C-alpha cells in the first residue's frame, strides 16, 4: 500500500521551497496527527497496567508489579482456549467467505447492463451497512425470536418448533450470515470500484485474443484486482484477534447458554471487567490481542512479500 510509484518526479523546486512545502503539508496534516496522538497513542502508554496488580490505595502508578500473573489468569482459564478459538475461527470464516462473495458480487455488478438496476442494487445492498448492531439485533430478534417470523414459519411447516436462542449449533451459521449480510454491500462496492478502474483496453485485448467472458474474468479482472484483495485481506488479518463487539454482544442477546459459541475475546474482556472489575487482567488480554494482531500482520505481510512483492502492505 505504501509502495512508491516507480516514476517519482525529479525534484523541480529549489531546496528552500521544498522545506516550505513540507512544512505546509505537515500543517495541513497537523489536526489529524494531534488527534491520533492524543486519542490513540497516549492511551498506549497505559499498557503497563497489564503487568500490575492495581489497587486504588496506591493508585495505578504505584500499584505493585506482578509480571505476567494477569496473563496467567487468562491462559489458565478453561475459557481462554474457547474464546481464542471462537475469535479466530469466526474471523477466518468471515474473511474467506466475505471476501469471496464480495468479489463475486463485484464482478456480477460489473456485468449489469442497466444503469438503473445497478443503482438500485447498490442502494439496497447498502441498507444493512446503515443499521447499528443494536438495530440489527432487533431485526434478528424479529425473525428468530420466540414470536419471530422465521420461528413461526418453521412451526407452520409442521416441524417441531425451533428455539434459536437455545440451540448452539445454529449460531456460527447465523453470526456468519449476519456479518456477511451487513458488510457485503460495502465491501463488494469497494471491489467494484476497483474493477471499473481497470482500463477498457485490457478487456478489448482479451476479447481480440478470443477469450470468453469467464476467461476474461479469470485472466484480466482477478489478477488486476488482486492487489486490492490482498490489501483488504491483510487489513482484516490484522484484526483477526479482535471482533466486532456489537455483533457478538447484541445479536445473541447475551444468552448465557450460547456463550460457548458466541463468546469472543472482546466480549469476554468486557464481561470480565464488569464482574471482577480487575483492570489488570482485562488490560492483559487487550495487550495480548494487540501484540498477536501485530505479529500476524507482520507475518502475513512477509509471506505476501515473498510470493509477490508488489502486493505487500508496507
Amino acid at each position, binding site marked *: 500500500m505504501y509502495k512508491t510509484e516507480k516514476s517519482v518526479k525529479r525534484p523541480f523546486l529549489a531546496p528552500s521551497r521544498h522545506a516550505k512545502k513540507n512544512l505546509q503539508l505537515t500543517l495541513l496534516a*497537523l489536526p489529524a*496527527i*494531534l488527534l491520533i*496522538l*492524543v486519542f490513540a*497513542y*497516549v492511551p498506549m502508554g497505559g499498557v503497563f497496567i497489564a503487568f500490575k496488580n*492495581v*489497587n*486504588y*490505595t*496506591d*493508585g*495505578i502508578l504505584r500499584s505493585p508489579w506482578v509480571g505476567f500473573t494477569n496473563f496467567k*489468569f487468562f491462559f489458565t*482459564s*478453561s*475459557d481462554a482456549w474457547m474464546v481464542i478459538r471462537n475469535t479466530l475461527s469466526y474471523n477466518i470464516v468471515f474473511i474467506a467467505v466475505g471476501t469471496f462473495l464480495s468479489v463475486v458480487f463485484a464482478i456480477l455488478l460489473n456485468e449489469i447492463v442497466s444503469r438503473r438496476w445497478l443503482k438500485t442494487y447498490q442502494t439496497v445492498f447498502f441498507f444493512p451497512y446503515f443499521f447499528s448492531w443494536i438495530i440489527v439485533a432487533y431485526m434478528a*430478534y424479529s425473525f428468530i*425470536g*420466540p*414470536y419471530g417470523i422465521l420461528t413461526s414459519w418453521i412451526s407452520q411447516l409442521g416441524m417441531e*418448533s425451533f*428455539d434459536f*436462542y*437455545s440451540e448452539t449449533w445454529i449460531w456460527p451459521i447465523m453470526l456468519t450470515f449476519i456479518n456477511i449480510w451487513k458488510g457485503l454491500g460495502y465491501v463488494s462496492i469497494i471491489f467494484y470500484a476497483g474493477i471499473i478502474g481497470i482500463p477498457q483496453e485490457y478487456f478489448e485485448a482479451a476479447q481480440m485474443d478470443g477469450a470468453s467472458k469467464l476467461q476474461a474474468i479469470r485472466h484480466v479482472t482477478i489478477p488486476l484486482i488482486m492487489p486490492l484483495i490482498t490489501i483488504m485481506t491483510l487489513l482484516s488479518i490484522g484484526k483477526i484477534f479482535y471482533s466486532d463487539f456489537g455483533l457478538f454482544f447484541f445479536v445473541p*442477546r*447475551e*444468552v*448465557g*447458554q450460547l*456463550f*460457548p459459541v458466541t463468546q469472543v475475546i472482546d466480549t*469476554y474482556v468486557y*464481561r*470480565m*471487567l*464488569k*464482574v*471482577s*472489575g*480487575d*483492570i489488570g*487482567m482485562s488490560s492483559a488480554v487487550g495487550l495480548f490481542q494487540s501484540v498477536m494482531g501485530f505479529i500476524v500482520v507482520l507475518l502475513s505481510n512477509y509471506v505476501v512479500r515473498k510470493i509477490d512483492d508488489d502486493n505487500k502492505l508496507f
Partner: protein
Amino acid sequence: MARTFRMTKLGLTGIILLLVFGLFAAACGNSNNNAGNKDAADNSTNKAADKPANTGTNAGGNDAAAANGAGTNDSGAAAGDAADLPEVKLTWYFPGNWPQPDQDKVFAEVNKVIKEKINATVDFKALPFGDYDQKMQVVIASGEPYDLAFTAGWINNYTQNVAKGAFLPLDDLLHKYAPQSYASMPASFWDATRIKGQIYGFVNQQISARTPAIDVTQKLADEYKFDINSVGGKITYNTLNLLEPFIQAVKADHPERYPSIGIDPDFFNMEAIVGINVPGVVRFNDDTLTVVNQFDSEEFRTFAATLRDWNAKGYMNSKERISKKTDDWVDAKAGKWVLSIGGAFKPGGANLAAALGGEPYVEAPAGTAHLTTGGITATMMAINRNSKNPERAMMLLELLNTDKELFNLLNFGIKDNHFKIDADGFMVPGDNQQGYNPSVPWMFASNFLANVEKGMPADVWEQTKKVNEEALPSKLLGFTFDAEPVKGEIAKATAVYDEYSRAIQLGVSSEDKYNTFVAKMKTAGADKIIAEMQKQIDAWKASK
C-alpha cells in the same frame, strides 16, 4: 532501518506537539464544562493538602474540617452550620430507575436544602441499574475524584472494591460527623460491614432480615381465589409444588403468563459468602460453619429438578424468556407473570410491587427471614478513597438520615406536585407523580424515614425494625470475606454461572447439562474458593 530512524524523530516531535495540544485540550474541556473546571482546579491546588486523607489513616486530613463541624454537628446539622463551612461540590453516583422526567427539578430543590444546611451542592449522577456496574468499574479504575457511591453485594461489589482499596474507612468519620446515624443502628449492623476490622459502608437501613417475596397481582389472586397467606412463609426450594395448583389454573386461561422465580440464597436457607453466583455457602443451621458448594448441594439440585419438571409441563414459557437476561417488571406490566418470587419481603412491600408493576399486588414472605451479612449490606453508601471532601460527604449522609423532609423530597419528589399527604397522614400519588417516581426508597438513606404510603400499615417502619430484630441472626454475622486471594477464580466462576444460570432458572437445563455446569464450576476453581473461605472463617471463629 531508515524508516525506524525517521519514526523516532517523528516520535520526538510528536511528544512535544502532544504536550502543547494536551494543554490546549484541557483548557478547552474546562471551558466546556464549568463543573469540571472547578474540580480540576481544586484537584491540582489541593493535592498536597489531601494526601494525608488519602493514605488511609485519614485522621490528619480531617482535623481541619473537624474543627469546623464537630461541635455543631451533634444537633444534626442545624441551619447555622452552613456559614462556617467552605462551599464544596460533591459528586454522588447511584443506580435506580433513572432517568425520571423531572429529576433535574427535584435535584435542584434538594440542592437548595443541602446548600443551606451544609453549604454543599451535589452533582447527582443517577444511572440506570443496567449501566451502573460497568460505569463504576471505569470510574473507580480511573481514579475519578467522585465522593459518594452506592455499593452492595449485588451491584458495584462492596468486598471487591474494598479489597482494591477503592473506598475510605469510615469509622472516624462516622463518629465525628454522623453520630445520630451511627447510634440509630445496632452495633452488629456496623460489624457486618467491617472488612479487616474497618467500616467501609454506610448502611442504608431497611429490611435486613431477608427472605424472598412472593408477589401476585390482586386481580389474579381474586380471580383464582388464591390466598397468598396460605403459602406465605412455607415456600422454599423443595416446597415450590405448593404453588402448582395456582399456576396450573392460571396457565389454563393465560398461556402467556409464567412464574418468575429468582435464584436467591435465602431461598435455600443458606448464607452466600460472596454471592449466589460464586460457589461457597454456609447453611443457616450448620453450627460447624462448614463451607459447601451450593451448586453441588441437594437443595440446588432439587430446585433445578422442580423447575425442569415445570418447564416440561409448559409453565415456564422458557422459549420466550431465554433470550432475555432477566425477568423484569416490564414483563409484569405487559401481563406476563403468574407470580414472582424474588427481591426481599418487607412490611408494606406490596406497595412497591404495585408501583413497579402498575397495578395492585398482594405479597407474602416466601420463607423464614434470616438476618445475614448480605442482607444488612444490601444497601450501602461508600466514600471514595480519593474524595476531596470526605467529611462533607459524611455530613450529607447524616443530613439525609436525620432530615425527614429532605429525604422524602429526594425520594418521592416535590410535595403537592409529585406526591401528596392525605388527611390521615399517608402519602398518596400527586397529580404529577409520573414526573418523578424512582421507586428506590432504600437508596439515599434509611428507608425508615420514608413517608408511609397509603395502603401500608401506619407503623410499617416499626414493623420492619421488629422483623429485623426478631429474625434469626446468621451464625456468620460479622464475618466478611477478603476476596483478593481468589479473585481470578471468582471471576471465572462468575463467568460459568452467567453461562448456565438462566437455563437452570427456566428449567431448560437437563440433568446432564446441570452436571456439566457443576463440573465446570470445579474447573473454574470452586474448590480453591471454598477452601479459602473455610480458612478465613476458621480464623475468624478462632479470633472470636
